[in-house]
Every structure is written in C-alpha cells, then in structure tokens.
C-alpha cells in the first residue's frame, strides 16, 4: 500500500507536468461580443451624447450593463487575493474613479470646494441640473443645497443629524465617465446592496478629488473625506453619501433616498 501512495504521488506530479504540455489553441477575445450581448440593441450608439432625459432612457440598459461589469470587477478585486495584487489599475464605479495609491495632498484650505459652488433652494437646484435629485427621507430636508460646476453636481448638506455633518453628492454618473477620484486602499472597500442595486462601502477617510467635464482633476477640490462613504448608482443618478455613519445607518439613509 505504501507503494500505492508513492505511485499515486508520482503520477499526480506527472499529470501536472503533462497539463503544461497539452495542446490548447489560442483563445479568442470575447470581450466585445460579451459586452454587446449584455447591452442588447439599445447599446448601439455612436457618440456619448451630453444630456437629456430621452437619451437617458434609451441608455439605461447600457448603463446597467456597464454597472454590472464594473461591479463584478470590483467584487473580484475586493474579494480575491490575486485581484488585490492587480489593482494598480483604475476602477470606475458610478462616475467615481477609484485608485489604490496615496493621491494628491489635500488642499491646505479647510473647506476645499467644488468649482463654481452655488447655494440655492432644493426647488431651484432641481431646475439647474439634468438629473433627478434624490432626497433621503431618513434625513429630511437638507440644511443646504449646493449646485456646482454649472449644474454638474448637486450636494445636499445636513449639518445637524444624529451622526453629525452628512453630505450627499449627486451627479449623472452614467453620462460622463468621471466626476470624482478617490484614492483608497482596497481593503477598505466592500460591496453592498442599496435598494437592490450594487454599491460600494468605503471605510475611513480618503482623499477625494473632483474631476471637471474635460477630465482634468480640480486640484483645489482635493480634500480628506470624513467618516465613511457609500457610493451607489440608480439608473438615472449616481450618489455618494459621506459622514460619520455606521454602515447600517448609511444603508438606511441610502435606502430612503427618493
């Protein structure tokens, strides 16, 4: 029987080596075909259009598929050790680019701002932006509503909540590719579900940078976030929620966004 075990180990090793010498033809590249099949006929478009609800509606399947692809990628990157090793690349999720590197130094000025910030009422803000502004009923009326960069981002600021200062940024994350860059450590990122949609929960402060319409990072906007952050997207708007919130509290607030 000892001989049997020895033989078995030997043939196992031999099989492993044999595996390396087996003839496997080169693989094709299924990426384009897979993307096309996931997006369906609605995805046949030539150029990214700028804004408009009609376009938005037609874009939904594509946007959803893109989200799904990104979400899987993130699951992988977050979940697997080999994934973590490969993360020199940039991840994009709901208009936010995640990079695993230190990032620029936060702006020395406290209160680093987005470009062209304008305070206005919620009703006014809704007229200034092309996407629906969702308000979390769990927090009620915001203390302040700020629209930045010519209507590209709307921010709801809550000064007095049981969790302290809470901020919610909203933008059309499916139209333009990047609104914010976050410099994170992947170990701090976990995947969550918000109203049945994928989201990311980022634990702890990280450097956040606003990226303008032409793709340039706005250096003056660099700041260290407070508390924890939740990012997620609905078919029509992408959101990030920031504050000293527990994961449960953040998810409850996010779930209440209408």
């Amino acid at each position: 029987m000892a001989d049997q075990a020895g033989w078995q180990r030997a043939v196992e090793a031999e099989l492993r080596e044999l595996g390396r010498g087996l003839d496997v033809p080169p693989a094709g590249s299924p990426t384009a075909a897979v993307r096309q099949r996931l997006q369906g006929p609605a995805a046949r478009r030539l150029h990214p259009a700028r804004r408009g609800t009609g376009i938005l509606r037609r874009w939904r399947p594509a946007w959803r598929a893109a989200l799904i692809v990104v979400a899987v990628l993130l699951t992988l990157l977050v979940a697997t050790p080999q994934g973590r090793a490969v993360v020199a690349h940039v991840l994009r999720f709901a208009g936010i680019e995640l990079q695993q590197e230190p990032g620029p130094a936060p702006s020395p000025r406290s209160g680093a701002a987005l470009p062209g910030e304008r305070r206005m009422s919620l009703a006014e803000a809704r007229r200034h932006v092309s996407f629906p502004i969702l308000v979390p009923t769990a927090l009620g009326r915001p203390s302040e509503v700020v629209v930045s960069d010519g209507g590209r981002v709307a921010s709801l600021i809550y000064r007095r909540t049981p969790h302290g200062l809470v901020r919610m940024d909203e933008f059309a994350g499916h139209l333009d590719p990047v609104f914010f860059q976050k410099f994170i450590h992947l170990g701090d990122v976990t995947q969550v579900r918000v109203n049945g949609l994928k989201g990311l929960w980022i634990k702890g402060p990280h450097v956040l940078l606003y990226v303008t319409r032409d793709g340039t990072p706005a250096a003056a906007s660099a700041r260290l976030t407070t508390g924890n952050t939740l990012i997620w997207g609905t078919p029509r708007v992408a959101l990030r929620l920031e504050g000293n919130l527990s994961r449960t509290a953040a998810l409850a607030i996010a779930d209440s966004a209408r």
Partner: protein
Amino acid sequence: MLVARYTLRAHRAAFLLGAGEESDDVVQEAFVKAFRHLSRFRAGEPFAPWLLRIVANETRNLTRSRRRRTALALRLSAAEPAATAADGPADEVLAAERRTQLVAAVNALPDRERRVLVCRYFLDLSEAETAQVLEWPVGSVKSRTFRALNRLRGLLVAGQQGGVSRG
C-alpha cells in the same frame, strides 16, 4: 477588463473539458451567463471556480448535444519543450513516449474520471474547487480521482507490458 483577465483560464478549461474548437463560443456564453446571474454570486467567494462551473456546464451541454465525445481527445502540444528530467536524447525519447502514453491513458478514461483529472491536475484546482466546478460532493471528487488514478495505472501497466520499458 474582467473578461480579458479570465478568458485564458476559462478557455483552457473549456478546451480541456472537451469543447474543442467551440471553446471560444463556450467562453462567451459563460461570461454572458455569469454577468446575467451575478446576483447569485456571493461577494467574498472566489470568482474563478464560480465562472469555471458555468464553463464546465456549458461544455457539458455542448458535448452532450453533439455526442462527439470521441472527437475531443487531448493532445500534446507539438511545441512541447523537452522534459525537465531529460539528460540526453535517449531520456528525451523515453520521456516523450511516457507522456504520449499518459495522454492516451487519460483519453481512454471514462468521462467522469477524465473530467476530475482535468480539473485537479490540468487546471490545478483544489478538491473543493473541483467539487464546485463539477457540482459534485467533495467525497465524489476524492473517490473518482482515486479511481481514475488507479485505472490510469492499470492502463499504463498494460501499455508497458505491450513493450515500452520505463526505468
């Protein structure tokens, strides 16, 4: 990106499990299904075995529907480098013969036993991963691997008695 990263592994699995020249189609189908059924994927679980399970299923559907099991014998690569243990031309010839025999023996195994060997040794999956990919209990993976190796031994011994010597 994701697709690109897993294509090679998925394609290798499809091919070695018997999809033959339809391996690319199997891989494409598997990715589409994987994305569509993403909700069944639990975060934190390794992705590769999950994807390979879909690949294995697709391959199985294909080979069943075509009843072309015999056409998908594994082959040694023509460009296979000389065996590492070979010290001289004579050893190389012997090693090459041995490998040819081994491939023939693997090809001669019953379907389930061959599949388990492909997963364990050609795709380098653990017993648990193999169980997941083939959708068998771990116990079956163990017993079928054991049976396959024994049968392989029988086939090789028979081959040696057929005149090929091995030191």
